[in-house]
């Protein structure tokens, strides 16, 4: 592992304006944020606060109209071409004509890995997300939770240092979500990746993150950045602890404050 704490994603005065039919919409206003190697950063806020837009800008799926944004010291576009990150969307987005293993192999095919390495990596990540033995199934033969795990495996397969996740468990029920959150933390501990995670659930953000970024809408901006004092090892029942409740309270206050200035 490279020196812990090296800045990976740096945003300085990032602005992003969408030109829409109703005139310009300021999706991000003056966003400053540094994400370090190995951080688990959650972005939380009501819809329209720009959390997804910011994540997409990191992935070079949107382009800031002002300020500077760097990923590993490069522009997001360069970082994308260097395959610096894996991206997990809200829906699994698996291709129905490919098996689960075929879906996980797809980015590896595109990136030109050898056939042997494709197989080896596919097997490894299938095991990592506990889908061993499901490689030959088609996506539509699996439950929503399993599909989402497969899409995480796909994002992990090419071993990028950064994992960007846009409400990956938003469409799943609470029980499945708890389990996947727990598994995600274990995976993060095992791999030491830097994770950017968009959510609108306060408990999810507090439970997962080392850093919580609270955002508010119109225009989308950061209102609070909370460094979590919780330990790296987090059993599910840490959510009943006092620190947990205090952080959740601060996040809620931050969200409410953002709402007041409208």
């Amino acid at each position, binding site marked *: 592992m490279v020196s812990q704490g090296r800045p990976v994603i740096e945003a300085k005065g990032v602005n992003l304006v969408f030109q829409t039919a109703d005139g310009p919409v300021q999706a991000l206003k003056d966003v400053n944020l540094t994400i370090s190697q190995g951080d688990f950063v959650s972005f939380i806020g009501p819809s329209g606060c720009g959390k997804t837009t910011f994540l997409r800008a990191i*992935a*070079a*799926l949107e382009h800031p109209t002002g300020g500077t944004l760097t990923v590993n010291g490069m522009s997001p576009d360069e970082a*994308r*071409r*260097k*395959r610096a*990150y*894996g*991206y997990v*969307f809200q*829906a699994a*987005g698996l*291709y*129905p*004509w490919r098996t689960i293993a075929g879906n996980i192999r*797809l*980015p590896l*095919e*595109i*990136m030109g890995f050898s056939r042997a390495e494709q197989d080896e990596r596919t097997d490894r990540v299938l095991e990592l997300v506990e889908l061993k033995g499901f490689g030959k199934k*088609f996506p*539509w033969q699996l439950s929503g939770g399993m599909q989402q795990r497969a899409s995480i495996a796909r994002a992990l397969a*090419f071993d990028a240092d950064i994992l960007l996740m846009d409400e990956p468990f938003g469409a799943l029920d609470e029980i499945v979500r708890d389990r996947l959150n727990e598994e995600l933390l274990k995976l993060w501990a095992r791999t030491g990746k830097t994770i950017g995670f968009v959510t609108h659930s306060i408990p999810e953000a507090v439970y997962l993150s080392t850093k919580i970024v609270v955002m508010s809408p119109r225009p989308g901006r950061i209102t609070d950045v909370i460094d979590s004092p919780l330990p790296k090892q987090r059993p599910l029942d840490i959510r009943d602890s006092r620190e947990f409740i205090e952080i959740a309270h601060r996040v809620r206050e931050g969200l409410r404050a953002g709402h007041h200035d409208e």
Partner: protein
Amino acid sequence: MSALWLAVVFWLAAWALNVWLAGSRVSKSGPGRALVPLIFGVTVLVLWEGIVRGLGVEGVILPAPSVIAAKIAVEMPTLWQDFVQTILKGAIPGFLIGAGAAFLTAVAIDRSPFLQRGLLPVGNFVAALPIVGLAPILVMWFGFDWQSKAAVVVVMVFFPMLVNIVAGLQASERMQRDLMATWGASYLQTLVKLRLPAAMPFIFNGLKIASTLALIGAIVAEFFGSPVYGMGFRISTEVGRLGLDMVWATIAVAALAGSAFYGLITLIERGVTFWHPSQRH
């Protein structure tokens, strides 16, 4: 008259049998499913035979199925020669060239918004031209033999294929395209690994429509000049000589060929788009 009554009795019996079959467990199995339409088809033929014989219908108006079958048996070499000329040399090459050209055009349109605005209306315009106007011109250009028939088929097949492929190439979801972008995929990789597979249900719809158009185009084009064989030539000359049994024999061959062509495309479709909700069982 007894032939008519026999046919009606057969019809009622077959009807009752089919009602029973459709409700029973036999119709759930593979061969059982084929049995019901088969019985229905046979019933139509028997009724047809009975009505023509029972009422003494003139052969020029409607020949009996047995007469048509006898004609097919006797004229097999001629029918085969016509089939080769019209289907194998006219319809199928025209179908392949038209579909292939539509595919290349669709990809070009996809890459360039300028072409999308320019080529689609032109394609639409060509598709709106009546075939009876177009066919004689193409016969003048490409001669009496199969080349001009293939050319007519190309023109008929091109536009429905183009529209379907262009729509199909837009069928992938934004998220799926974003995923390709996050992996740094090239245009060609995105086309081959995402957009073409996603377009397949559309492409096969186009192919099915085009298969019937190809048959019509190849036959009708022969009305405007052809060598002394071919299915369209046969139909137009035999009508002139009141050889309606031969006309019906040719129609039967055309119907069989068309169904086989369509069925083949449907089979391939089932294999290629097995993942699509409409094909999952």
